[in-house]
């Protein structure tokens, strides 16, 4: 019989051992990288094809092209129309998704293992041999234009769009994957074919196959479906590589507002460009972020939500990319609390750079929440495939998963302060408000940020 002692919390035992999934790397003769991972729990298989060239590869003036091409992938192949594809996917109970990132686009199909062959061949037909019909293109583009129109009323979307623009300016990363009204109108049907021909090449893609089969069988499904994929198009490259373009860093702090009269809350973004995902300081930065705003018990959330009651939640994070990536605080606060919430946020960002180094408790909490829960992210085939695709995207070593925990555990409070001091610069922060300008204009004067530049709601 266990006796419960309520005078103190039970100690947590030693971390249980966990073996991270082994990745077997293969390259097909056509240059396609095929990485297989066995995952034996439920008879499910996931195919995740990552193609280089996300929204950062949108040609200048054609923002939104990569996302349109991703949309066109399930609009038809061979004799199959979009409706037929949807029907075929439904018949094998498949879940299909295309996710357009800044550096790459990830196409995923999950199905029951007994439909693995059908699932793989459908995905290959869609990716390699899409019909790209003009009538489908016109409809897809129009749906996206109409969607943009609706997003004008979504404060978080307006804030994302304006923030990216402010921190990246003209850089290829400086737009949402959906693009803008004016750029979408410039995209033509021939742009779609040429982007597909340039980007969708076996040598520019990685296929991660994860599921309840042996490596050999996983590889066989990949080879049967994708082995005959030959480089198409005119051999042109897939457009500029955004990660290689050095952004022009803003020299000064920027203070901006998008006026939304009568808004019940102010949507806030505070941040600037920081560094690349592959920085050796990554472990220090993720711990720093956990302390500052990356978890419920972070400084920013405890201050703005639990202590002040300004918001339902506040968080910080890096929007990682291959190239220089932004750091940002994001929250939505009661209109009347806008100026105070900004002041508190700026003070917390300043403090973690040295005046208030993370305490032992904060360090322990941040590291424990990053490391002890780590195995939880390897429960489903989709989760595993996604993590492995990240390894491919950033060129990380196979040992990455196993090394993550020890590396994070080695971070010290001094490392965190050092990383914050080097990568967070209060004198260069962009502070953006999407909210009721006339209601808060007066209170903003006390912040010492000057008069905000006013931007229109524009998408």
């Amino acid at each position, binding site marked *: 019989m*266990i*006796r*419960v002692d*309520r005078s103190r*919390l*039970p*100690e*947590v035992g*030693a*971390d*249980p*051992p*966990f073996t991270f999934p082994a990745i077997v790397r293969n390259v097909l003769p056509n240059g396609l990288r095929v990485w297989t991972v066995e995952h034996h729990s*439920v008879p*499910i298989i996931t195919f995740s094809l990552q193609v280089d060239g996300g929204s950062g590869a949108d040609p200048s003036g054609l923002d939104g092209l990569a996302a349109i091409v991703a949309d066109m992938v399930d609009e038809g192949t061979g004799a199959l129309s*979009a*409706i037929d*594809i949807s*029907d075929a*996917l*439904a*018949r*094998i*109970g*498949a879940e299909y998704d295309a996710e357009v990132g800044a550096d790459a686009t990830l196409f995923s199909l*999950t*199905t*029951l293992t007994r439909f693995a062959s059908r699932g793989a061949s459908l995905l290959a037909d869609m990716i390699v041999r899409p019909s790209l019909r003009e009538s489908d293109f016109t*409809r897809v583009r*129009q*749906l996206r234009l*109409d969607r943009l*129109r*609706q997003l004008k009323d979504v*404060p978080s979307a307006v804030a994302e769009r304006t923030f990216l623009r402010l921190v990246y300016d003209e850089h290829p990363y400086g737009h949402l994957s959906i693009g803008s009204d004016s750029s979408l109108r410039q995209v033509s049907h021939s742009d779609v074919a040429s982007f597909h021909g340039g980007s969708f090449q076996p040598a520019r893609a990685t296929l991660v196959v994860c599921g309840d089969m042996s490596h050999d069988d996983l590889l066989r499904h990949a080879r049967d479906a994708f082995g005959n994929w030959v480089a198409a198009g005119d051999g042109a490259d897939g457009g500029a590589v955004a990660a290689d373009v050095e952004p022009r860093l803003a020299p000064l702090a920027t203070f901006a507002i998008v006026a939304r009269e*009568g*808004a*019940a*809350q102010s*949507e806030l973004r505070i941040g600037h460009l920081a560094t690349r995902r592959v920085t050796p300081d990554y472990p220090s930065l993720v711990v720093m972020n956990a302390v500052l705003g990356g978890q*419920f*018990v972070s400084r920013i959330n405890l201050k703005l*939500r639990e*202590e002040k*009651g300004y*918001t*339902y939640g506040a968080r910080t994070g890096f929007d990682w990319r291959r190239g220089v990536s932004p750091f940002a605080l994001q929250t*939505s606060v*009661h209109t009347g609390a806008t100026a105070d919430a900004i002041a508190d946020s700026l003070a917390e960002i300043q403090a973690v750079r040295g005046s208030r180094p993370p305490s032992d408790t904060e360090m*322990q*909490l941040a590291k*424990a*929440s990053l*490391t*002890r*829960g780590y*195995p*939880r992210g*390897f*429960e489903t085939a989709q989760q595993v495939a996604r993590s492995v695709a990240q390894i491919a995207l950033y060129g990380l070593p196979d040992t990455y998963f196993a090394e993550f925990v020890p590396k994070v555990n080695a971070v010290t409070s001094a490392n965190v302060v050092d990383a914050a001091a080097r990568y967070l610069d209060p004198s260069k922060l962009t502070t953006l408000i999407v909210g009721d300008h006339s209601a808060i204009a007066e209170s903003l004067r006390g912040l010492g940020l000057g008069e905000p530049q006013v931007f229109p709601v524009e998408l």
Partner: protein
Amino acid sequence: MTFSAPNLLFTKRTLANGLDVIVHEDHHVPIVAVNVWYHVGSKNERPGRTGFAHLFEHLMFEGSEHHNAGYFPPLQQAGALVNGSTNTDRTNYWEVVPTSAIDRALWMESDRMGYLLPALTRERFENQRDVVLNERRQSYENRPYGMVMMALSSALYPPDHPYSWMTIGSADDIRAMQLDDVQEFFRTYYRPSNASLVLAGDIDTERGFELAEAYFGEIPAGVRPAPISAAAALRSEQRLVMEDRVELPRVYMAWHSPAMFAPGDAEMDLVGDLLANGKTSRLYRTLVYELRMALDVSAYQGSREIGSFFMLVATAAPGHTLADIVAHIDRELEQVVSDGPSVEEMERSVAQAEAHFMYRLQTVGGFGGKSDQLNAYNVLRGNPGFFTEDLDRYRLATPDSLREAARAYLPLNRRVMLSVIPRGQHALALDGSTAVTAS
């Protein structure tokens, strides 16, 4: 397509104080899901006192007698993922912890079940009331179409029906809440006899029961609250219009439909798929793909404990009217009622349902994971093993049973039709609509 659902093996025992305990072993990853359902939601509230169940969920994270501080730090320190949610029918709380932290999670979960009130101070209460008001602004007031469910709920149900208000509660009611009301709410509903605990994952069954008995066995049982019942019916078509900060008009059509797990519930779920799930569905294919009259269309059966609703939503493409869209939808509905789905449509729909049952078996914790499902089946059906029977409801559906459900539950002359229009543009609403506001 048929396959045998893998058994979701479990053991259930009820402690002397009435707490149901269910243990399911799955040793793939060294984690354990702890999941507690309290059979209380906003349907247990009264008019003028709405928002209690949800505000209470927030207070459950603020500390209890023996851990008089925030709920998150000791669990995040242990590597746990922690969350909770409230709906009309139930409130759930869960942690997913490394196997090494199961004692701590159960200590914390049991402390707030048994010893919450001594730690519930006025200051904590008032702070969380502000947080909830902010949640309301962020998730409803400041979001396009965010107030729609409030308008629809009041139109579908009479004012004393517990589904006539939203789980978030009215802003006035939230502001007017008193600390002693909240304490009374806890004493009534947060009792072992009104709760169910699931442990799922890397845990030995006997060890699970031993721990559950140790931590929860000492908590007094309480009185199991009486079930709630209420009825609602529509006698005619109600046309409403609401202005919002939106660019494009949208129509919401809502009907009453069979309660969760009642005969016809699964059929209505499948009717929703048939109409608007995926590009192959009838309304997507015609309205969005072929005719390009709508930007999007969706349909779903909102299954709830004492009565469900079925909803169809479509946003007009620029240059098209809601009236044209509704005329088209009505023709499609008449077609379903007269001819039912084809055999191919039926096969596709059931194949998808079966695959989704399988996908739901992939995670032990979190919303919708195995621990949450076992609790849902236990609390709402009294049988954690209802998985196979649940799946059978879909397998046994036929074109005729769908046709019959659509005929019975989707009458064109008894429903709510809500037009949501850009501010000031009343001409875009359906004819004969009465203006409503929600706040």
